[in-house]
């Protein structure tokens, strides 16, 4: 596709992004095929862009889009007997009409997106493809945009999406909301898919930009949709709260020159207070009731940072206590590393360093630059500058983004002149 056409195409997609996810979900429920749904949804949106400017926007735009897309799908199936046979659509169409979930009060279409979330994040799909499918089908991004999000060439992403869709179709991964018995087992991959979009956007694993804000915002948008669809699930509240409480610090995270600013040194006046308030309210939801889940606990830790006036007045004992809970829920060396950093704030750098040294042989931390970087910072506070320099150097051999490299280099320079 030539560049200009691609640019126009993606702005069209952007306008209808929210509508597209709903439309796709309704079409998948009716026709049971992601490819067909994608095709006719795009055609309906194109038709809307042709007709609405001259004929006016219809009273029920969602219903207009769905009717247009359905007509196209039925036409397609009349022409393509093989596809029609596979989908057994002529029989199914009539039987399905009355299965539709109730429409939202403020919308003219029933919301089928929850089932689509569970299809896109099905555990039978590769973990890396779940986030991509969720971005493509629920957030409504184009394949090129999804490719950019995950820093892979568009052709590679297109191939991955084709393969994942083929698995959904041929292995018959269902399009349905799991029942109450299954939900606790199935929700984590959905939350993980959304959170992977957020972390990818927030701290790009490599490349020149530290943050890709629009991707983090896409993840938050997905989190809000999920929160509306599953209001009783506290981990959904926890996930959305966590994302908001981290994203609230976005403006303070980079300096005027684009350099990384760590939590300790951030200008807290630049944090987004309304976003923090919204996040804190969600933490209350996530932590009320039975034992909290990992997203709720991580959100609570983020809230303690966001509510503190500065580093010194942060409630470190409470932060450490929450890391203890988190370590019980997800025993990972990365959590242990963060806990050690919090212990260093509560009990002093020596205590933190002792905990970090216990993790030295963990193979899962090999290649993880925050480990040597955290050691370096504590060694420096203890005045052990040569060792700190060595630790900064080993972090520098591992680090991904340019701003992180620049930050570590500046620290190394300071420590070698101290």
């Amino acid at each position, binding site marked *: 596709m030539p560049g200009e056409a691609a640019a126009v195409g993606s702005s069209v997609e952007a306008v209808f992004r929210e509508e597209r996810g709903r439309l796709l979900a309704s079409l998948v*429920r*009716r026709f*049971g095929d992601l490819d067909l749904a994608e095709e006719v949804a795009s055609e309906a949106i194109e038709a809307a862009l042709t007709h609405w400017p001259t004929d006016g926007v219809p009273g029920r735009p969602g219903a207009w889009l769905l009717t247009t897309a359905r007509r196209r799908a039925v036409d397609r199936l009349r022409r393509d007997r093989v596809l029609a*046979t*596979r*989908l*057994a659509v002529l*029989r*199914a169409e009539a*039987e*399905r009409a009355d*299965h539709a979930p109730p429409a939202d009060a403020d919308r003219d279409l029933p919301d089928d997106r929850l*089932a689509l979330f569970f299809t896109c994040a*099905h555990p*039978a799909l590769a973990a890396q493809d779940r986030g991509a499918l969720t971005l493509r089908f629920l957030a409504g991004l184009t394949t090129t945009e999804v490719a950019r999000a995950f820093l892979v060439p568009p052709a590679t992403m297109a191939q991955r999406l084709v393969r994942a869709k083929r698995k959904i179709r*041929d*292995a*018959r*991964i*269902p*399009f*349905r*909301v*799991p*029942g*109450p*018995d*299954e*939900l606790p087992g199935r929700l984590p991959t959905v939350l993980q898919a959304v959170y992977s979009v957020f972390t990818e956007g927030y701290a790009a694993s490599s490349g020149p930009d530290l943050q890709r804000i629009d991707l983090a915002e896409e993840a938050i948008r997905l989190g809000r949709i999920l929160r509306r669809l599953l209001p009783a699930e506290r981990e959904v509240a926890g996930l959305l709260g966590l994302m908001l409480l981290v994203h609230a610090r976005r403006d303070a995270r980079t300096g005027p020159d684009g350099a990384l600013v760590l939590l300790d040194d951030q200008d807290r006046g630049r944090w987004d207070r309304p976003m923090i308030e919204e996040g804190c309210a969600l933490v209350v939801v996530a932590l009320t009731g039975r034992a909290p889940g990992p997203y709720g606990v991580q959100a609570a830790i983020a809230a303690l940072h966001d509510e503190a006036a500065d580093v010194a007045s942060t409630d470190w004992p409470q932060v450490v206590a929450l890391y203890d809970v988190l370590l019980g829920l997800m025993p990972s060396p990365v959590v242990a590393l963060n806990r050690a950093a919090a212990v260093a704030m509560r009990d002093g750098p020596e205590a933190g360093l002792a905990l970090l040294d216990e993790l030295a042989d963990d193979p899962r931390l090999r290649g993880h630059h925050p480990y040597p970087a955290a050691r370096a910072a504590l060694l420096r506070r203890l005045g052990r500058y040569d060792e700190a320099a060595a630790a900064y150097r080993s972090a520098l051999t591992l680090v991904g983004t340019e701003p992180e490299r620049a930050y570590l280099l500046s620290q190394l320079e300071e420590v070698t002149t101290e």
Partner: protein
Amino acid sequence: MLYGDTPHREEPNVKYMLLFMSPMVDGEVVDNGCSFEDWIRYDREMKDAGVWVSGHPLQDLTTCTTVQVGPDGDRTITDGPFAETRELLGGYDIIDVPDLDAALDWAARSPGAVGTGSVQVRPIAEIDVQV
């Protein structure tokens, strides 16, 4: 009711093959410790639910022979599986269920899924489906 939402699509069921795999260590199959009675019970459950199509346990490793035909048509016959084989197929069942979730549920209920065992779930390729 196992699932919360009734399937919307009135599509024909899919057949899946459940392949019961055991790891091989130093040329020996590692037994996962389930009993003959466990398999009998599982077999009965599948038949009672009306999902079972066919299936067999396989004879043990000592009876396995591998055949390979070279580019010039030469047949090479070797005792046992390939030396590098890390997993051995111990048996299979073919079941007829609505979707992957149902197939995965049957796989998880099998005695072959516990301990060192694992179950591969593969949809059967239906070529030329007619309604």
